[in-house]
């Protein structure tokens, strides 16, 4: 069964450093998403991406964040200058349809900023 994969599973970085989180969505899906979940809190929407551009973003997704689909398979989230409060689990998700279809989530990348 196809699944969303994410790398790395755990990333430790120092405050102020840049990190890139990687995702490989399900191959026939067209819509891609990033979410984050701070420990013990709810899953929060960051951004959705379709047809090589951002279709929607939340207030959390400020200028420190960017997304890219550098090739036909990868989908990346970059945080330019990490802060302590960026420590969270970051989930990538993909869906075949826009919103009406279910989203399939990856296993997540745990980002720890020290």
């Amino acid at each position, binding site marked *: 069964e196809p699944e*969303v994969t994410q790398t790395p599973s755990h990333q430790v970085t120092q405050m102020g450093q840049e990190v890139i989180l990687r995702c490989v969505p399900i191959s026939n899906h067209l*819509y891609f*998403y990033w979410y984050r979940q701070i420990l013990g*809190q*709810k*899953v*929060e*929407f960051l951004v*959705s991406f379709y047809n090589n551009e951002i*279709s*929607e973003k*939340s207030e959390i997704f400020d200028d420190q964040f960017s997304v890219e689909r550098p090739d036909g398979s990868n989908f990346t989230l970059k945080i330019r200058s990490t802060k302590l409060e960026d420590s969270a689990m970051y*989930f990538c*998700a993909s869906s075949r349809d*826009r*919103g*009406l*279809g*279910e*989203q*399939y*989530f*990856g*296993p*997540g990348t745990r980002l720890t900023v020290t």
Partner: protein
Amino acid sequence: EDQVTQSPEALRLQEGESSSLNCSYTVSGLRGLFWYRQDPGKGPEFLFTLYSAGEEKEKERLKATLTKKESFLHITAPKPEDSATYLCAVRMDTGNQFYFGTGTSLTVIP
């Protein structure tokens, strides 16, 4: 203001003891309500999508229902392997954001 509220926060059931989880929402123009299951340290796993009031979906011991203001996830004769956090999310008819609730942590005791 929270758009999605789930209750209870935590629920402990004996194996075989049926119960219901609640998800209430305040968004207008609901385009879809989604139920997910999340195991510790893992990503949410899709369970159901409900689109309109009165709709019901079933999968094994789980049944999801939807009214104009809330959804219920009914668990019939649960087993220990049903232990997980159950998340509810909504999507409005404008935009492509999904709003998640904080979840209900379910523990089924053998």
